[in-house]
């Protein structure tokens, strides 16, 4: 447990630092980095966060070690529950999500952070690759305080000039009022986190911009692995490393299983 931070630990820490106390977050199951980010934020600086786990709302601030539950509906994860929630109430009552932050995955991302979980191909009746479906991403991304685009792959297959289909709106056609013009009340995507880098959105154009590269990643590699031109600042820093307290919480309480170190 004493090695240098892994890329996944760095990604989780970056996300955790961006989540504020009092915010609501869903602890993912199938995505270890998102799960770790949510729990790290909660245990490190978010004692009053609303932590949603297996359709329950809970608070794990005093939990010494968090087990990992791999499946969304594993009922054992509900043992800390303070309240139960029906799935439809969670999705339909978006006003209750006004302090919520959310994560969106994608088969494709375009320069304005619009994403595709539907599939690849142009004939909707015969997609070349049928995606898993949008789940609740479309509605949640329209309403929540802000969201993050989280990707397990950084390649020109994913970062495309134009998505085959758009299942969640990022910054639409671009510009800071793109979402307002569509009437979407949520704050939109703030960052896109990949195994290579952190991207944000340029203020005026709301185009994806390189914000930092993870340790050992060259700016040129990011450029090469992105299928369109990112906005490039003059200076690209390295993504910050976890502090000792953060690493200790990750390795002893959040992820003793080593999902982020495997």
């Amino acid at each position, binding site marked *: 447990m004493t090695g240098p931070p892994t890329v996944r630990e760095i990604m989780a820490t970056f996300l955790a630092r961006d989540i504020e106390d009092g915010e609501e977050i869903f602890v993912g*199951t*199938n995505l270890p980095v998102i799960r770790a980010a949510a729990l790290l934020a909660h245990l490190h600086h978010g004692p009053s966060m609303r932590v949603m786990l297996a*359709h*329950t709302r809970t608070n794990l601030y005093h939990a010494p070690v968090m087990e990992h539950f*791999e*499946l*969304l*509906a*594993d*009922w*054992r994860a*509900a043992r800390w529950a303070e309240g*139960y*929630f*029906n*799935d*439809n109430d969670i*999705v*339909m009552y*978006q006003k209750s999500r006004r302090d919520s932050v959310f994560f969106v995955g994608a088969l494709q991302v375009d320069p304005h952070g619009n994403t595709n979980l*539907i599939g690849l191909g142009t004939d*909707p*009746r*015969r*997609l*070349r*690759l*049928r*995606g*898993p*479906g*949008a*789940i*609740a*991403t*479309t*509605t*949640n*991304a*329209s*309403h929540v305080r802000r969201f993050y685009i989280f990707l397990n792959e950084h390649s020109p297959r994913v970062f495309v000039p134009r998505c085959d*289909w*758009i*299942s*969640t*709106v990022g910054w*639409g056609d671009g510009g800071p009022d793109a979402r307002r013009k*569509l*009437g*979407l*009340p949520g704050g939109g995507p703030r960052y896109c986190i990949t195994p290579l880098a952190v991207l944000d959105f340029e203020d005026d154009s709301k185009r994806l911009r390189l914000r930092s590269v993870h340790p050992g990643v060259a700016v040129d590699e990011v450029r090469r692995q992105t299928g369109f031109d990112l906005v490039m600042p003059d200076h690209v820093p390295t993504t910050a490393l976890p502090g000792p307290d953060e690493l200790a919480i990750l390795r002893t309480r959040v992820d003793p299983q080593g999902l982020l170190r495997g």
Partner: protein
Amino acid sequence: MGDHASDVLSPGVPARRSVLVAEPELGDWFRDGMTIALGGLATACHAMVAVRHIVRRGLRDLTVIGSAVGGLDVDLLVGAGCVRKVICPYVGAEALASIGPFYRAAAERGEIEVWECDEGQYYTGLQAAAQMLPFLPCRGGVGTSFPELNPDLKPFRDPVRGETLLAVPAITPDVAILHAAQSDVHGNVQFVGTGYADRLLWRAAERTLVQVERIVSNEEIRRAPERTALLAAGVLRAPYGAHPFSSPGFYLEDRAHIAELVAAGRAWARDRDRQPFEAYLARYVHGAPTHLDYLEAIGLRRLLGLDEWGA
């Protein structure tokens, strides 16, 4: 089946109706071309006795409304050729199968129609049915490809503030099939846990059949009326009836069995090799004509090994 103690004591008095359904009576509930909603969520609480019944009968042209995070219950029905159209924002089993292989293959080959939606649109349509409205509006999907992928999701200007929203038509299941912890013989159904969105499926459907792990007395229901979630039109006693999926408070999913189903699906999806799935069906569906036959095919040792907290 009026089994209330007082009915026995007063034989001349009409009895309160029992809604217990015996397994052979399942035939009355389903027919070709129906719209059927499946309860539960992801890898939990699908009504698998009813699903296997449908496969065994070889029903055709079903419109299947999977749960909002639809499980491999949908995939099994698609694989068996029962399905014409799927209404579901996701079909898969998360880490056990990121997407249902039969579903993916059938969609890519144009063998089924996919009513493209996210959970917000899906619940909005069910909510409209439950409220007896022709449609309800939702915002999720504005600015996306959904109206192009699914012409039933119709952009319109709201008559109050002039905003653009999507109109979602009512989604009305002919039958909803759910799996729950317990019920009395009169259909008072109680869950362990949240019940996912099963209450809404019940509210939207014409009729609802609920499998339960156990039948309890009406007095036990009254002991905790705040737990009563819905009133079923039919109740089927089905211990282990969600297998191979989990049932909160009773058992975990059976990962080995799910892997067997997924492997059969992948053989069909990748290589158009139907043999593994035919073997699966022969063993677990056609070769096991009743739920008890099915459970014997799984085996006592396996079933009792699925407990949530066991060693």
